[in-house]
């Protein structure tokens, strides 16, 4: 084996150009700007690294950015009608295509991580089929029914450190409060979406002019805010850590900001689509834009972006939710919620947030690389050591039109379909 060399790559955090030599030992690591670079044996300013004449693997990375690959805190990988192995395989390919090395898989009815057997068979499938790392969020309640606590010690023994009941957080607050008291003692974090089901039943869109004109029932934002506030108060009382999932409203951001200021152990995420789109994108019943929670107003997008920049929101997530073309062809009320996000994750972030100057590369590294890993704490179960993010090369000059050929997850429910995104990704580096 010979070393791989990368010349003139721009390091994402300082904007300077360096030459890198990739080691052959997986435990090799160098440090740059206080950041551990796994797999890198040597670093030198551009042009100063001695590269052996005739070295067979030398990448000229002029104009390209070297950065840690992304970790996605929120992906649902189930595809209706497909085998679990295929779902795992496709999600893994999708992640790599979008610059994501690892993800937290959120329970869904087909991937109900409330017992050892389901987790074991899932981990087998990941080992055999997935190109990306997949951590699992264990269920809060058995069968995600919100009635009885899942087997937390069993889940913990299989590496689970985050609990979630997916799209439907428990409405039985007594059960949740007791679960928090118990599971927080074995280091569990509760990932919860803000919701009050009684207020949001049979709704599918942000209330406003669009919902009125389309004759659709609106999901009042206060339901999410009451849900977040309730979860935080329960967690504060029970001494549990909370990760607020897919916050979508400006007041939701404020609630989290106040809780952090008061010293509560809380982290939060925002889905990329809530930063980019509003309910007005739904237009004439475009089910691509039906999400959970629904797309909100421009003022919410702005508040969420401000929350990302000031650290109130820790992570940007894909909230990847594959839906079959037929499912999304149905009417807006019947069609399932969600859009895919893994396949184009980094390219969309670059095109819509970094390129227009709304976020910096530092913001993205913090919210998509560093914070998610710190919260999810991925562990190599075989070696019992923390898994480290690999590096990727990002070419901001190249562009592509999004189509079925570059959506390996196998479904097409993305708002970027047919649009041009910027950036090509080399992951893994070899």
């Amino acid at each position: 084996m010979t070393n791989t060399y990368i010349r003139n790559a721009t390091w994402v955090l300082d904007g300077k150009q360096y030459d890198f030599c990739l080691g052959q030992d997986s435990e090799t690591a160098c440090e740059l700007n206080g950041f551990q670079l796994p797999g890198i044996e040597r670093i030198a300013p551009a042009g100063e690294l001695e590269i052996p004449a005739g070295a067979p693997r030398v990448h000229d990375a002029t104009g390209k950015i070297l950065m840690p690959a992304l970790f996605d805190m929120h992906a649902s990988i189930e595809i209706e009608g497909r085998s679990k192995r295929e779902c795992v395989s496709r999600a893994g390919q999708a992640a790599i295509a979008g610059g994501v090395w690892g993800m937290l898989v959120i329970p869904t009815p087909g991937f109900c991580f409330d017992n050892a057997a389901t987790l074991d068979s899932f981990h087998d499938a990941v080992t055999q089929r997935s190109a990306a790392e997949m951590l699992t969020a264990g269920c809060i309640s058995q069968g995600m029914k919100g009635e009885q606590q899942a087997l937390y010690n069993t889940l913990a023994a299989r590496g689970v450190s985050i609990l979630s009941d997916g799209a439907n957080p428990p409405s039985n607050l007594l059960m949740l409060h007791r679960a928090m008291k118990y599971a927080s003692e074995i280091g569990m974090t509760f990932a919860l979406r803000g919701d009050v089901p009684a207020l949001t039943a049979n709704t599918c869109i942000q209330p406003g002019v669009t919902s009125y004109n389309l004759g659709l029932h609106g999901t009042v934002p206060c339901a999410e805010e009451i849900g977040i506030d309730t979860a935080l108060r329960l967690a504060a009382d029970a001494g549990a850590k909370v990760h607020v999932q897919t916050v979508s409203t400006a007041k939701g951001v404020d609630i989290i900001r106040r809780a952090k200021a008061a010293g509560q152990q809380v982290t939060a995420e925002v889905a990329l689509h809530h930063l980019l789109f509003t309910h007005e994108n739904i237009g004439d019943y475009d089910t691509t834009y039906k999400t959970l929670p629904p797309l909100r107003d421009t003022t919410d997008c702005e508040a969420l972006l401000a929350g990302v920049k000031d650290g109130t929101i820790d992570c940007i997530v894909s909230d990847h939710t594959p839906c079959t073309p037929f499912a999304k062809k149905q009417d807006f009320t019947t069609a399932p919620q969600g859009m895919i996000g893994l396949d184009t994750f980094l390219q969309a972030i670059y095109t819509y947030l970094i390129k227009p100057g709304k976020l910096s590369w530092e913001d993205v590294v913090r919210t998509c690389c560093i914070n998610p890993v710190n919260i999810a704490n991925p562990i190599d179960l075989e070696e019992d050591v923390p898994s480290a993010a690999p590096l990727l090369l990002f070419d901001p000059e190249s562009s592509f039109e999004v189509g079925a050929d570059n959506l390996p997850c196998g479904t097409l429910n993305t708002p970027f379909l047919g649009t041009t995104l910027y950036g090509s990704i080399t992951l893994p580096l070899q």
Partner: protein
Amino acid sequence: MKPRKDLLTIGDLSTEDVNTILDSATAMKDIFTKSVKKVPALKGKSVLTLFYEPSTRTRSSFEVAAHRLSADVTTFTVSTSSVVKGESVHDTIDTLMSMKMDYIIVRHKNSGIPAVIARHCKAAVINAGDGAHAHPSQAFLDAFTIREKYGTVAGKRVVIIGDILHSRVARSTSTILKRLGAEVAYMGPGPLVPPQAYTDIPRFTNWDDVFEWKPDVIYLLRVQNERIDTPFFPAKDYHQAFGVTDERLRRIDDLNLSIMHPGPVNRGVELCDAAMDYRNSLICNQVENGIAARMSILYHLTPQTQNND
């Protein structure tokens, strides 16, 4: 009027299209007084009525309209079909299109379903009411009725009273009336008149303000109990607060105002009994004009099911 396959909302039509359909409705209504109430305009064409929600007047109105145009009419009964076995709308339409239907008249509780069907098939699709979204044929018959009564819609003032939130009639009828130059206002219980409904429409909260506005037409909406799972207001308050009581009827009569209602009427809720026999009630005119308006709509649509020879 340019060839048009479907009628899904009033907003899809130009003002010229609206006037063309209304003008033809006048001609269609003349047929009603002939000894043979039938013309061969749609002879040989197949019309399907596909109603996923209960309906008496809209369905029978469309069926009578299609018969008077000499079309063959098939009635699809949802309660005895594969729909109750969980069949998707797409699969139902595929099955029905295999029977070579030219027109599909559809009503569904979910907003947007007619658009889904229209995209999926070559038949002309007419929205006969989808959720709280649209009811364009009702809008045409309402506009036609006002035009017939007053000679014009332009300049008339129409106050629509009741459950604006859930009403596809309010959305479609206010759109067509404003398009034709009428002024529209809303009144109803707060939770049923959402702010986004009256961004460009006056909203009243009591009858005194309504009368002060000097309307020409009082348009009552039905309280749609079937769409209300958790109450929006104390039901027993409705008649006194928003209904046409005997006392208000006298005032309406004094001012020579017209009363309209899309039906079916909840007697004692929206209207007192006496209001049903009020001299300026246009409710029966609406039913009769519904057939003429629907004949005109059918006449002006162009299915893509065959060479339109």
